[in-house]
């Protein structure tokens, strides 16, 4: 599979949020404003790419040679948690506004199943190092895309005339469902 197809597949066809349904928590939580959605998406993409590279190295040079596949989940979480800490420190230093806007969801990237899922998928599909990184980049940008799309819709929703029982979270979930339905249209692309 060429790298471009892999990238496109992770970005659209097998979008982590809208097709695989991974990482729904930040998808619903940080999609109220486009700005913070972009920030969250970028932070997650960064963690995904670096975590994917780091977990590939760990899998290849530690877990496989020493026959420790049962430590996969634990060591991957260790990597992800450390990276999230790093991103948090970096953001607190460079962009306090973004840091405040993302709030609790920033440390929660640690438990974002999209990241662990991506790392484990890379291993299962026996990707090479380059492939794993491209897969992570596509997945991360796909996550950002889904977040920004929903955030854009929710910003418009504020001015829409919504039936009272559907105000707030329900209408957001309906929109997310419709978005997911729309993304199934990419299924035949590759």
């Amino acid at each position: 599979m060429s790298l471009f197809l892999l990238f496109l597949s992770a970005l659209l066809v097998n979008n982590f949020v809208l097709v695989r349904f991974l990482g729904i928590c930040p998808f619903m939580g940080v999609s109220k404003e486009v700005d913070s959605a972009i920030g969250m998406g970028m932070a997650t993409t960064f963690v995904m790419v670096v975590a994917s590279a780091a977990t590939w190295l760990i899998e290849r040079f530690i877990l496989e040679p020493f026959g420790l596949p049962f430590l996969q989940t634990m060591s991957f979480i260790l990597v992800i948690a450390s990276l999230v800490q790093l991103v948090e420190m970096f953001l607190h230093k460079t962009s306090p506004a973004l840091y405040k806007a993302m709030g609790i969801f920033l440390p929660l990237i640690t438990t974002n199943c999209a990241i662990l899922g991506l790392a484990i998928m890379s291993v299962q599909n026996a990707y090479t190092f380059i492939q794993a990184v491209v897969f992570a980049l596509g997945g991360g940008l796909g996550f950002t895309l889904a977040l920004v799309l929903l955030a854009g819709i929710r910003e418009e929703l504020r001015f829409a005339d919504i039936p009272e029982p559907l105000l707030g979270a329900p209408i957001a979930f309906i929109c997310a469902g419709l978005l997911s339905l729309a993304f199934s249209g990419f299924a035949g692309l590759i």
Partner: protein
Amino acid sequence: MNTTIVSLVSMGSLAALFALGLAMAGRIFAVETDPKIDAIEEVLPGVNCGGCGFAGCRAFAEAVASGEAPTNGCPVGGATVAQMVAAVLGVDAVAPVRKVAQVLCQGGNAEAKQKGTYDGPVDCRIAHATQGGDKACSYGCLGYGSCVKACAFDAMYMNENGLPVVIEENCTACGKCVEACPRDIIILVPEDQGVHIRCRSLDTGRKVRQVCSVGCIACQRCVKVCPTGAIYMEDNLARINYDKCTNCRECVAVCPMKTIDWQDGKPLVLEKAAVS
């Protein structure tokens, strides 16, 4: 047994590696609070009015300390505070250009026609949302004094003609009245500017004549007479570019509706009411 040792060693060394990395990152990305911020905050007025464009005095002090905001950025404190802030930072003080609020509507009770009666709460924003109040002009002052209520410095009052008047000496250009006005008829203008086009109506001249006796009818005489090209037409309304205006008052003389006025220290809105 062997697996246990290998697991312990490999995971232990990984964890140690990450711990070291994070410890170093903690040093590099440490968030220190600048002692200058507290010193600057001390000399600011402390009303948290937000006139500087930041979320309160603390945020402004942070911005000044990091060089994002100018030392003279506090419109309330003016030159005195600018000097004190500059002293904290050890730089030369630059006096800020003082701005004052200007009300761009002269359609008081005497000039603007009514389209009905409004019995709702005395609040411009509510009136604006409820069929646009009782005046026939949908761009002009509603006259319920939300701007006056928003002013924290006693720099505005409602005159007997139902229009807000700015007491320029008290105005700090904090912008609260600008925010409070649902019709955007209040703007902040450098205080040395005396010529103002006091109308915000985008209606055609015909429509304006029907609802108000002092509105801009888009006749363009001011545009033609202006020697510096400071006045231009946009959406049936004459607008003034304060950067180009030289206060020559040519436009004031030709304006057939007396929409453009020359303010010379005294609230002109009162005179207009007396004339009509």
